[in-house]
């Protein structure tokens, strides 16, 4: 329990401290240290969970499903903070922001981490909602950190769209609460997920299906499901790169996590009704749509970060589809995909940040010859993109493999769409990637001081996961699969 509290509230304290820290260099280090502490705490928490099976209490509840997401969040937060220290200093030196901006950045970074961890670890749908909304509020100012017209515009769209979405999610939460009133012994428990889960079969199906629609549209906006995705590329491309890394790597995961938790409730309530798979069907539909549309969008990108944010949409769509598909194999694959995707995608954004510094721009047409100029950056980008495109021996291949075979088993006709989508998305990524990394470098392009260690660590982990999934992780994922689908693989 203490580990849990530490893991969740360390970032909050860090945010407070950083809000008061004036020295820029110091702030960077504090940021790193706090994140490291958070990660350590999350590891301790993970060990507790491994020992006890689950840690619950004080409206918190950590089981196999969210513990690895917690650890992942803390880890990516740490590595990104390591990357962001020199990166943001470079940004500050180039004058794109000032000391106040940096203070805001650091404190908001930790606040964001806090909301993420809170959303993951809480057992209360209301708290979940508050945390996700808080995440929006924490990041919206960071998106507009550079104060360029584009940044402000992106931030406004992000704010409005996610605000509306989240409001709808609240309505869904209210409906859930409403449905719970008549069922639960203690109506005050009506927002406690575990209580609802046990009582799920008794929940009124008609209300729950309405509630799920609101929740899906609401949190789906955060996931970046087409057609509510429009904020995502803007926010990713205009915000500072570390922000993009954590947004793509973590926020989307958390939103998806929320949707899956709620799907478990709805499935329970609809099990006996006329359309027991309504939630799954909806997820499949949205997932497939996002997957295909995002893949097409990749082809016309001119901004490198925008492009990779579309690839995030594509992968979130794939996971949503997999969760909707259901069945142990697909679910296991989706859980694994959440893990490897956020690792790889954050690594990509880190590399992209360096690439943008090398070229001095984010426009794809002006980023050229990275391998010639700075082989480390060029090769990392190339290999990371190969990984995200689903090439072995990286983990994403494993999850996509499971996913495709599961689809072939359950819904063979969807595999055609998946095949097309993968091909289109792949072409879209590489047609832009090739000219950037390969070929001769433009005159006078110089290497920048880059810290590639986070990237190396992330890719190393993804490679490891691709070659063999360690036993404890396998057990966790399997347990999570069992929680979600009832069946398991091991």
């Amino acid at each position, binding site marked *: 329990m203490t580990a849990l509290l530490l893991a969740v509230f360390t970032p909050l304290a860090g945010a407070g401290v950083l809000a008061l820290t004036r020295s820029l260099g110091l702030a960077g280090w504090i940021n790193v240290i706090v994140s490291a502490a958070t990660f350590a705490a999350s590891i301790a928490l993970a060990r507790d969970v491994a020992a006890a099976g689950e840690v619950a209490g004080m409206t918190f509840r950590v089981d196999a499903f969210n513990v690895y997401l917690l650890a992942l969040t803390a880890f990516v937060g740490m590595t990104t903070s390591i990357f962001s220290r020199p990166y943001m200093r470079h940004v500050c030196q180039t004058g794109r922001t000032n000391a106040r901006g940096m203070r805001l950045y650091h404190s908001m970074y930790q606040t964001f981490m806090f909301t993420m961890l809170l959303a993951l670890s809480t057992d209360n749908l209301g708290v979940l909602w508050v945390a996700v909304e808080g995440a929006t509020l924490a990041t919206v100012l960071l998106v507009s950190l550079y104060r360029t017209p584009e940044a402000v515009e992106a931030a406004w*769209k992000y704010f*409005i*769209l996610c605000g*509306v*979405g989240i409001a*709808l999610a609240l309505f869904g939460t209210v409906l859930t609460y409403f449905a719970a009133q008549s069922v639960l012994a203690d109506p005050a428990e009506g927002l406690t997920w575990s209580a609802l889960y046990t009582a799920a079969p008794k929940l009124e199906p*008609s209300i729950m*299906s*309405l509630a*799920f*629609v*609101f929740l899906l*549209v609401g949190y789906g*906006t955060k996931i970046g499901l*087409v*057609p*509510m995705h*429009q904020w995502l*590329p803007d926010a990713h491309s205009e915000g500072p790169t570390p922000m993009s890394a954590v947004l793509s790597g973590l926020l989307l995961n958390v939103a998806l996590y929320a949707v899956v938790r709620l799907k478990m409730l709805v499935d329970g309530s609809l099990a006996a009704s006329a359309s027991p798979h*309504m939630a799954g069907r*909806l997820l499949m539909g949205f997932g497939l749509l996002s997957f295909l*549309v995002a893949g*097409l*969008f990749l*082809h*016309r990108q001119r901004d490198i970060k925008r492009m990779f944010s579309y690839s995030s949409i594509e992968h979130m769509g794939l996971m949503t589809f997999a969760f909707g598909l259901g069945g142990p194999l697909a679910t296991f694959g989706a859980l694994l995909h959440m893990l490897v995707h956020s690792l790889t995608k954050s690594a990509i954004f880190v590399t992209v940040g360096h690439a943008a510094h090398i070229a001095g721009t984010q426009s794809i047409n002006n980023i050229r010859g990275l*391998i*010639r100029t700075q082989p480390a950056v060029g090769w990392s980008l190339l290999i990371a993109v*190969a990984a995200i495109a689903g*090439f*072995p*021996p990286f983990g994403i*291949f*494993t999850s996509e493999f499971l996913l*495709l*075979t599961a*689809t*072939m*088993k359950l819904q*063979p006709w969807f*595999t055609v769409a998946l*095949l097309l989508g*993968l*091909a289109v998305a*792949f*072409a*879209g990524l*590489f*047609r832009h990637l*090739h*000219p950037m990394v*390969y070929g*001769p470098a433009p005159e006078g392009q110089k290497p920048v001081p880059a810290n590639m260690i986070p990237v190396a660590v992330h890719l190393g982990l993804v490679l490891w996961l691709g*070659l*063999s*999934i360690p*036993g404890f992780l*396998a057990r966790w994922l399997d347990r999570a699969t069992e929680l979600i689908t009832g069946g398991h*693989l*091991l």
Partner: protein
Amino acid sequence: MTHTGLNAAALAVALALVSSFVSLFTVWSPRLLRVAAMPLFGLAGLAALAAGLVALAQADVATAELPLGLPWLPWRVRLDALSGFFLCVIGVVSAAVGLYGPGYVRGFESGRDSLPALGGFTGLFLASMLMVTLADDAFFFMVSWEMMSLSSYFLVAFHHDIAANRRAAFMYLLMAHIGGMAILLGFGVLASFGDGLAFDAMRGAEPPFGWASAAFALSFIGFGMKAGLVPLHAWLPEAHPAAPSHISALMSGVMLKVAVYGFIRFFFDLIGQFHWQWGVAVLAVGGVSALAGVLYALMQHDLKRLLAYSSVENIGVIFIALGLAILFLSAGHATLGTVAFAAALYHALNHALFKGLLFFGAGAILHSAHESNLDQMGGLLRRMPWTGYFSLVGCLSISALPPFNGFVSEWLLFQSALQVWRLDSGVLRTLIPISAAALALTGALAAACFVKVYGVAFLGQARSRHVRRARPVPYSMRAGQGMLAVLCLALGVFPATFLGLINAVPQQILGRGLNQTLAGGWLWLTPVRPDVASYSAPLVALTLIMLAGLAVWLLGRRSVFRTRRCDAWDCGFAPPTPRMQYTATAFAQPIRRVFGLLFHIEESVENQDDGKPRHRLDISDRTWGLLYLPVARVVEGAARRISYLQSGNVRVYLGWTLVTLLALLWIVS
């Protein structure tokens, strides 16, 4: 694992990985690639060869499990005769590359392209190819398969300063990826019928005809795309020439065979049921590939592109043989099916050898004359004699001329095709002879093609200055070529012996061997019955040598003194200059005129400002215009239309949210 063959295979993979790891240090000392990485690579090849030979000799099955992969599905390894045979194919060429490589990569040590990438991915490439042949479950197979594509892609992009190479690499990886996905889905079909991704489970699966056909189609597309069957071949002539020549040799000689292996494994072993419709499909596609491949090869004037297209042709021949095998097996003529199957295997091996040999030759020319355009070459036989003679062997073998190895596989193929009268279905009885005709035409055109290659490149006079200054290549490179050349001859002269080795493969896969074919002992090939057809390569070779010797002894010996050097006669015109020679383009012109409609030809005469008219001719693949560009256009159009979703107006976005919400509410309530 205690099985010797399996140990050897493991050693081979390990050595390949070590070689790729070692070459990471070439950042600090470039010569490491030459002195350590390439020799290790060669050793890996030898180990693979040993493993394969053991597997073929023992003709047993050894399995093992690796502590890697999915928690509930560890990577499973299996070494049987089929894997063994293809291990041999990979091993031989890799060993030759190990000999040839050091001399060749020396040229890159001063270059700007990164050596660690070259060496590292070369080793990885070999390792993944070996793993593909060893894999015994779909997951491990796909991992190795995609690793093979990826590593070779990096090698294709090695000279990435040239835009064409970048395009080629992109095209290659894209199509490899699509193909890989198709294969994966094919496995998915089998896995969902024989519950489980392990190959044993799939062997057990008995899918109904419809699903089996789906699996067949998917795998055929996937492996065919990798093998370069028309019309899925477009990447091949772009990618293979782009890579360094020893890599081209690996890609054309070996990787395509790995695709053939995949097809055989998937189809003959895993699906394990034969339907004549599938046979017809394979036969037709193979025939088309063979013809189109050789015709396009004839039109090329870049040596490496030409060789790549001729790979398309040979793959087509292999698939013709496989198609015949399927047809005969589906009709229940096991013996004939076995003969065709063996022909396919033998041709796979042969093609690996002579295509490797020819790419080595092209590499040698590139290395010493820095030229790959045939129209600039000429007279190289006198400047680099060894390379010249070895390449001659290659050209003879690939043109299917006795007593070299290409002829044997073609002969077997014809023999099985001539047994068509045993089939009951009239359709097949008419179809197969036509495919045989296509095969004959292919062979003749291939001969024309390689007469052109050899005559233009090695004979006559040099057409450009740097070719005139060409020097012989280092001994190591010649040794690599020599090894393959000797093997080409050996496989041509002693086919029965080598077929005896291969015999274990059909015995395991099809349940019966080539006993009939090899009944006559090492001296004779008798596919069906001695009185039906027989061929004794050793005697033919022997007699040929004896007759030639006789002629030389009668005429050559005494009259040596009466030979005088003089200017060329040339009907008494002015002494011929190199510019008067026939070029490669000119050589192929009659055939271009006859088969004109197959190509997309743009021919024009432009008047330069210096008043000298310049003749321009470019011949491109019709499949681009017919298949690839339309697809690309469709995707582009879809992307353009879809982009209106991102109009930029926040109110429109909110409208989308509202509409989605209402629609969903409508749906659920």
